[in-house]
């Protein structure tokens, strides 16, 4: 097992490039309570990266900072090797995201929701039907998104994130609200995307599910990164333990 702060860079392939990189990312709430303390996140290109931690650990805040939804207070963010702030529009054109609950216009159908974004991404119209088929929403017809179940809204959120055929996909709790069949389908979808070279950053507290999917992981607890590296490195010396046990061991140790 390799703690994040141990400086053992060997946990990653030294030749690999980072698709997303943060340096010393810190954030304080207006009351002065620290949410994040010096997060140095390194997401290798082409990985399925699990950003794991309990509720309130700082996962969503990190992702919101990375996407520019929260004003950065301290630290650096680089995506595709470039500083985010200076290259925001260019970076966002190659990135898809789903943060917390899916963002859908409830008075519009799934196709209309995607068309709203297709105009901005300037991607081909065919792409709308492709992502609907990929996420199992091809038959929603004239049904408005407001009438969708939580699982269908989640699928539509993922379809929106995939619309511009992104190089980096950032998904916060993507399997929320999905039934077991849906979880398997979406897992297969992520694996297919990974096979095509897409980098997938998944934030979750569902460790059992993540274990089946991720190639790399970072564990965050109380705003501090406890570990990051390959899944193999996380399991080093603990081959019999599942991710949940390893996670609990790490968080207890840091308490």
């Amino acid at each position, binding site marked *: 097992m390799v703690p994040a702060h141990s400086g053992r860079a060997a946990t990653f392939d030294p030749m690999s490039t980072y698709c997303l990189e943060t340096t010393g990312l810190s954030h304080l709430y207006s009351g002065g309570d620290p949410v994040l303390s010096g997060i140095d996140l390194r997401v290798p290109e082409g990985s399925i990266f699990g950003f794991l931690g309990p509720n309130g650990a700082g996962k969503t805040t990190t992702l*919101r900072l990375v*996407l*520019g*939804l*929260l*004003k950065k207070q301290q630290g650096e963010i680089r995506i595709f090797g470039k500083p985010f702030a200076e290259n*925001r*529009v*260019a970076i*966002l*054109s190659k*990135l898809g*995201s789903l*943060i*917390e*609950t899916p*963002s*859908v*216009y*409830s*008075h*519009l159908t799934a196709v*209309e929701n995607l*068309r*709203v*974004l297709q*105009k*901005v*991404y*300037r991607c081909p119209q065919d792409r709308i039907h492709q992502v609907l088929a990929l996420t199992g929403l091809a038959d929603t017809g004239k049904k408005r998104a407001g009438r969708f179940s939580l699982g269908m809204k989640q699928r539509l959120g993922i379809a*929106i994130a995939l619309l*511009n055929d992104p190089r980096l996909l950032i998904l916060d709790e993507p399997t929320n609200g999905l039934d077991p069949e849906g979880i398997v389908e979406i897992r297969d979808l992520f694996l297919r995307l990974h096979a095509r070279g897409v980098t997938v950053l998944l934030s979750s507290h569902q460790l059992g599910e993540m274990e089946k999917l991720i190639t790399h992981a970072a564990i965050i607890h109380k705003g501090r990164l406890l570990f990051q590296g390959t899944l193999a490195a996380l399991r080093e010396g603990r081959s019999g333990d599942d991710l949940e046990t390893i996670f609990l061991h790490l968080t207890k140790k840091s308490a």
Partner: protein
Amino acid sequence: MSGFINSFSSEWLKKRRTAASLLTVIGSLLIPTIVIIARIDDHATLAVANRQPHIWENLYGRNWQLMGLLFLPMGVVLATSLITQLEFRNNTWKQLCTTPQSLTTIFLAKLAVIGVMLMEFFLLFTGGIWLTGALPGIFFRDVPYPAEAFPWKGVGNGSLRFFLDILPVVALQYLLSLRFKNFLIPLGAGLGLYVASMIAVHWRHGYWIPYTYSAYNFMGNAPQKFHTHWWAAGYTLLFIGLAYILYITRKEKG
């Protein structure tokens, strides 16, 4: 420029089936419909009325009376708040702010959609005024088409003045609706300021409240040496500038 056009087109799609888009159509045609019904009901006087030399001025005044004093400011308060609050209501600011477009483009595209909807409203209302004169002749053989030609230029100029005078209301409602997540704040502030403006319309300093301008325009009772349209333009620029600064510097984008 193509980025802005795409963004505008995307924003325009969002208003489909919204209450604001329904309000634009219904609000613009409601008063002309009432005037048409009232005229048809009083059809014995129609033939004479349509032969009068100032029939269009008369109909223009009847239509604008309620519109200028009540429906226009109230409708603008409601429609601007509804359109701008669409992102809060659907929790979509976070998606919108992670699309590859500058925040300035998003700000201007949303504002442009409201501006175009307002123009749509004025065009429909002008068409409605024309129908109040032209339509009764279709129902009654003895009622002629109005003797006077429709004064397009005069009606156009009048509409342009109302358009200019309502812009500060659009700008302030836009600022409030972008700033506050709770729909009741922009709506309450807008309706409150409208009521205040109706009280202040006869006060010599009533011009400080920009919501009075469409009433001044209709009643022609603006305080002396006060140029309504310049003040409206000034307030509009001030509110839009302020809205932009507040939007751009917001710590949390969605």
